[in-house]
């Protein structure tokens, strides 16, 4: 079997980002379900938090191609 180990490395790196993004969206949905009028306030926060958590997965993606 041949292939690149960095692909496995990126797969592992994506786990953390996946869990984090999942938690953020779950919390967002719960808040909006409980208080629908909070959607406008929460939506920018949602995307900001999502973008910050995603940063680690992005670094992993780039390192997978560099390595």
């Amino acid at each position, binding site marked *: 079997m041949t292939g690149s180990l960095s692909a496995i490395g990126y797969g592992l790196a994506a786990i953390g980002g996946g869990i984090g993004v999942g938690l953020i969206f779950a919390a967002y949905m719960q808040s909006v379900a409980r208080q629908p009028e909070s959607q406008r306030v929460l939506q920018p926060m949602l995307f*900001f938090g999502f973008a910050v958590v995603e*940063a680690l997965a*992005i670094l992993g993606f780039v390192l997978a191609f560099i390595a």
Partner: protein
Amino acid sequence: MNAALRLPATGGFTAPTVDEMHLPPFFELGTFEFGKQMLLILLSVVLIAGFFMWAIRRHALVPSKAQYLGEAGYGFVRNHLGRDIIGEKEFRPYIPLLFTFFFFILVNNLFGSIPVLQLPTLSHAGSAYVLAGIAYVTWVFMGIKRHGLGGFMGKMTMPPDVPKLLYIFLIPIEFLSNLIIRPVTHALRVFATMFAGHLALMVAASMTGYLISQASLISVVSVGSAVLGIFIYFLEILIQVLQAYIFTLLFAVYVQGALQEGH
């Protein structure tokens, strides 16, 4: 195994590689290579400027369809990304930059889903670095102008309400994450998603092409990969719009963070 379903032993499928995303340049001027990406950037500038100038060619109290569309796009960036995040008092000087970022990235990303053009400009890291660099210089400059160099650095590296001793660890960590990793991920986020999406589309398309070319029953399987490719295509459109929004949103959040008083 049925002989008709067996893949040929030689000349198997080779997936497209990263190198195939670097198309040969159209022409060269010395060491400067003019490629498809640059042509697309110029085209996007013409398209955006052309559309908005056409949309406002006649100002009317009762807007025409084109004017309404242009105003809706402008209003979205101004109100949701500018006013709601940077704040009522401060957002006006940043509208041109927010507007340019949003529509420039949006159009350049959508080039990835338009047949014939079919290449997101930002799938080369260079243009993403430049965009994030402009954003970084802007918010750092405005922050220093507002708070002075010392005040700005303190804001960026010293979170409030922390025991003094912890600053030994916190200052380097915060410095790294706020002033170094932040602009890098700002650029890489839009680059990586465009790059990965384009590569996924290339893999699905070349897989379909390879399976169709098989002169046996196995070519029926190509339907599966074609459906996968179409699914990725529509997912890409969603991601392209979302990334333009996120890039502009993050810029607005960074500006707001640099300008706000106190901690």
